[in-house]
């Protein structure tokens, strides 16, 4: 909302400076967005007197002027045809930025055809204060040299633009702004009566309200014999200042009142009305098709409120009128509408039609329902003043919706909610200056709410008014101390998992990224597709139109982007959400990482990561996140976007998959335009089981240190290539759980000496004797058990 300072001062008596007013607005909640202050913008320009203008010795079109300026007498070479002795002009000293030319004058005098020029005299266009470029500004009036140019030009009215919060439609009228400012004590609200015009005849047009929910009150009045002239200067200037284009007096008057009082009106050309009745009713679809003032056709449906006569729909009530019944220069008789339209219905209509208008903007936020009378009287007075004519009596249909209810207000609420300790009288004073009616003697007031403050219905609303006007500056900042008693670290197990997982990966050389929660539908399809209910209705772009089922998409494409920038080995990870369904529990926190299979070049030999490197990373993260890694089963059952022979999952039991890792399938990489091969993993932190609750003590169980030296024995088994090494290891481990403390694979071999289709796997088994050293016989017994178990589990044999 924009308004010029002069307009505000029409309602507010104040000596405050612009800065003081701006501060008062800000601190009362009217957040300044911009102040266009010509006095500041044109501070360098001032009135000068041309003592003498003589012909330039070497140029026909130039004059050499001796000019009296605020900086003394200056010689200025001027090319304007109207430069003459004795004129008053606008002077710009050397170095001044000229907005209309978008350049700054040289700081040193320039010679023009041999004559030095010490500044410039400007045209209106050069100041962007008009189109006139035929000559320099020739000021009317006897302005003193040095007077600011904007003052002499009548352009010294600053325009303030501020944000109107949706709860305060009354700020969409300048008077409403003045009222709040007056309450802050920076001035007083002037009594500006709208005037009351007695009608001289009965309106030939009457009003019927067929849909009171949408339009409960409608006042109208006929004015006969008007002349829709061009508006007077003051009116045109006021509208121009707020960015409105003056049209004609009737249109301009309604616009003025809309911005002055937040009171939208409509004026019909009465000659176009048929049947003598104007009514507010539900739309009838195609039958009501009309052309609105935006020159588009609309067919209002039954959810919309139209204004109609017997013959046709004239417009959308509170939103936009129609061209047919609009006023033109030929209009002589008019019918003024001053009605109130329901905010929700107005808003729904505007949304459905896409129409934006000043009236709609106000009605959807809530116009003062009791402003119909003032609005119509104000409009009548201005029309009679500017356009002449004769007014009818006012026709009133319906009743204004009820005022907001009184609020029972214990004044102690102010202290309870804000800590501000204000005397009762001050609370009463603030409420009263804002237009509230505080009644009652004790500490519980009964507060009447003004009709324009429909946002106020609760005690807290009044507390806000009091605190806001008293000033939030006075709030007594009080530190919040921890609650008494022991403070338990508040981090949840999931938060800790995420934290440790991050640090484990960053410590292993991965850089943490944060990528979009959205993904492209076709790319999500490469990873099993997006979850049900997770397609956006209004995506920001077609590339981000579903919620991601995996974080791999963005990490893979980001990896490629990094490679394209010359960083082919960057490893990335993200700890963030993936979305399985639109239910509150349909989101998972996953740790996702990508590692390009990129061979480094090094004098000691090249290395490149393989699937066992990524498996090591996964195990490191799982350990860090507190997963029971030893109990996890690794199986080659990763989903279809993974390399069928170089990927797997780690799961707990048959169903709970905690991690998936390996190479990404080449088909997926191709679809995503990724060069080379990539290792990746995805760990679902939610799937890690909660650790069992202990006894609450942090003491560890005593350490058992075996005194005897462990014994190591090697075995080589021939097994079918389809046998998982893990099965062999588990079988060996299970042979004697008490004695066997470790099984590691020291060799795998296939080729010469190993039958086709088989592989030789070498295991080193560690036996830990507890009470006495093992005899050879005892070791042999365990060895036999190991072989038996392994053979039974894998169908293999001990390699001879």
């Amino acid at each position: 909302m924009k308004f010029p300072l002069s307009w505000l001062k029409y309602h507010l008596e104040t000596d405050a400076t612009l800065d003081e007013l701006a501060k008062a607005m800000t601190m009362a909640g009217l957040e300044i967005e911009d102040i266009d202050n010509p006095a500041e913008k044109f501070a360098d320009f001032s009135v000068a007197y041309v003592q003498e203008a003589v012909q330039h010795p070497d140029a026909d079109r130039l004059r050499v002027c001796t000019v009296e300026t605020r900086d003394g007498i200056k010689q200025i070479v001027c090319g304007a045809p109207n430069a003459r002795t004795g004129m008053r002009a606008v002077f710009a000293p050397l170095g001044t930025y000229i907005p209309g030319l978008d350049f700054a004058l040289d700081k040193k005098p320039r010679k023009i055809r041999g004559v030095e020029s010490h500044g410039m005299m400007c045209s209106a266009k050069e100041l962007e204060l008009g189109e006139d470029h035929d000559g320099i500004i020739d000021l009317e009036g006897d302005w003193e040299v040095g007077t600011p140019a904007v003052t002499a030009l009548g352009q010294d009215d600053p325009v303030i633009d501020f944000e109107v919060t949706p709860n305060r439609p009354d700020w969409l009228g300048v008077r409403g702004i003045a009222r709040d400012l007056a309450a802050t004590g920076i001035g007083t609200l002037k009594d500006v009566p709208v005037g009351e015009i007695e009608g001289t005849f009965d309106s030939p047009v009457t009003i019927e309200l067929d849909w009171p929910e949408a339009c409960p009150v409608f006042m109208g009045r006929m004015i006969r014999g008007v002349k829709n002239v061009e508006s007077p200067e003051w009116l045109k200037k006021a509208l121009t200042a707020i960015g409105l284009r003056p049209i004609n007096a009737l249109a301009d008057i309604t616009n003025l009142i809309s911005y002055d009082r937040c009171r939208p009106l409509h004026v019909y050309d009465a000659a176009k009305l048929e049947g003598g009745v104007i009514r507010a009713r539900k739309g009838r679809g195609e039958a009501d098709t009309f052309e609105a003032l935006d020159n588009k056709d609309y067919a209002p449906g039954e959810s919309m409120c139209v204004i109609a006569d017997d013959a046709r729909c004239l417009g959308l009530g509170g939103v936009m009128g129609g061209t047919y019944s609009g006023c033109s220069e030929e209009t002589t008789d008019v019918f003024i509408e001053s009605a109130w339209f329901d905010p929700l219905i107005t808003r729904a209509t505007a949304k459905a039609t896409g129409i934006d208008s000043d009236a709609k903007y106000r009605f959807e936020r809530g116009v003062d329902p009791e402003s119909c009378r003032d609005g119509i009287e104000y409009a009548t007075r201005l029309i009679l003043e500017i356009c002449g004519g004769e007014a009818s009596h006012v026709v009133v249909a319906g009743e204004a919706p009820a005022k907001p209810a009184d609020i029972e207000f214990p004044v102690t609420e102010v202290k309870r909610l804000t800590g501000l300790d204000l005397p009762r009288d001050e609370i009463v004073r603030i409420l009263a200056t804002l237009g509230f009616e505080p009644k009652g003697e004790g500490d519980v007031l009964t507060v009447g709410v003004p009709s324009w403050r429909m946002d106020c219905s609760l005690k807290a609303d009044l507390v806000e008014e009091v605190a806001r006007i008293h000033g939030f500056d006075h709030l007594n900042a009080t530190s919040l101390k921890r609650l008494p008693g022991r403070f338990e670290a508040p981090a949840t197990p999931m938060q800790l998992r995420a934290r440790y997982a991050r640090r484990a990966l960053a410590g292993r050389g991965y850089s943490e990224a944060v990528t979009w929660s959205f993904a492209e539908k076709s790319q999500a399809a490469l990873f099993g597709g997006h979850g049900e209910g997770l397609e956006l209705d209004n995506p920001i772009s077609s590339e981000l139109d579903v919620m991601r089922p995996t974080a791999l998409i963005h990490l893979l494409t980001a990896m490629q982007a990094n490679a394209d920038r010359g960083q082919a080995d960057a490893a990335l990870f993200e700890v963030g959400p993936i979305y399985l369904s639109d239910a509150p529990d349909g989101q998972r926190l996953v740790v996702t990482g990508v590692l390009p299979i990129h061979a480094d070049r090094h004098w000691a030999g090249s290395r490149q990561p393989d699937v066992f490197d990524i498996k090591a990373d996964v195990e490191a993260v799982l350990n860090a996140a507190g997963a029971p890694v030893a109990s996890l089963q690794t199986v080659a059952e990763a989903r279809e976007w993974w390399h069928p022979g170089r990927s797997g999952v780690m799961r707990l039991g048959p169903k709970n998959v905690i991690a998936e890792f390996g190479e990404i399938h080449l088909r997926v990489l191709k679809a995503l335009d990724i060069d080379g091969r990539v290792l990746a993993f995805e760990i679902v932190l939610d799937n890690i089981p909660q650790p069992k609750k202990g006894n609450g003590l942090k003491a560890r169980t005593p350490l058992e240190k075996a005194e005897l030296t462990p014994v190591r024995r090697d075995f080589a088994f021939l097994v079918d290539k389809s046998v998982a090494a893990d099965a062999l290891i588990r079988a060996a481990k299970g042979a004697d759980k008490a004695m066997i403390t470790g099984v590691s694979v020291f060799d795998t071999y296939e080729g010469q000496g190993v039958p086709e289709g088989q592989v030789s796997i070498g295991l080193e088994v560690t036996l830990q004797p507890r009470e006495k050293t093992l005899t050879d016989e005892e070791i042999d017994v365990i060895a036999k058990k190991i072989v038996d178990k392994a053979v039974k589990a894998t169908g293999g044999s001990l390699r001879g």
Partner: protein
Amino acid sequence: MLDTSNLDTLERDVLDQIEAAGDEAGLDEIRVSALGKKGSVSLMMRELGKMSPEERQVMGPALNGLKTRLNDAITARKDVLESAAMDAALASETVDITLPVRPERQGSLHPITQVMEELAVIFADMGFAVAEGPDVEDDFHNFTALNFPEGHPARDTQDTFFMKPDAEGMRKVLRTHTSPVQIRTLLKQKPPIRIIAPGRVYRCDWDQTHTPMFHQVEGLVIDKEANMGHLKGVLLDFIAAFFETDQVEARFRPHHFPFTEPSAEMDVKYERVGAGVKVGSGNQWMEILGCGMVHPNVIRNCGLDPDEYQGFAWGMGVDRLAMLKYGAPDLRDFFNSDARWLAHYGFSPLLQANLATGLS
């Protein structure tokens, strides 16, 4: 006939040989020729038996002394030779230690993560826990329960992302703020409540300072006496702690949010220092967060009596805090995963924000 002068000659002779020995094999030959079974000294020792007691009295100790001294000399020479041999062997293993090591990737943590951890530490010190909620929300939690009336213009200010309507025509939304976590917390937890809720939020907007996804942190205090003075105190303490400055100049400005009443925005003074921003002092105001007393309707919507319980809430941009504190100029870069940016603006995993060792 033996006498000690012969021994002196022998000793000098053998010691010279030991000193001249070039390797361990040569040294051993000398040992054998002097002290071996048939060595010169051993042969003389055999002569002792044939001597008179008087002679033996002289020659016995002399020979034993000689034997000891020769053995010592051999051992010493052996140490020298061994050490020299080791040095020679090691010398042959010399490498050029100026050759570069195999490069290791340097991992890092994202600044958003860092800032969230800093928030958790600062607010934990004031007794706040960290709460969470889902990104895909329903209308109730994101709007209705937060006192956004159906069809109210305030809903328009949120640039909401909607999911396609389901079979019943219901549309889920992407949460436009972290405030739904207030509702979820109030519905399942009894006051007193002190939480912060950092997380992803979504608005349909994209330019240098807006991305369709960004991060907010919500704060909520509900008890029987938390008032706006406490709100101001908490936020001033937070700004001072976060920006690590003693002098914070801030102002509270009335504003409007549907879910707070009274509502305010907080501005802090700042000044530009080079490419960065110094927060707390200077002469320009910067809006940093929105806050207010929790609206009675919100308290009521969560089953509590607003005449008994009261409190305050605030919300601010995590990414923006990161930009301000760590001087990253463009919000869009936060989500581009450019390895150069991550390395430059990221944080070491060894760094853990805490009160004892600092935030960063």
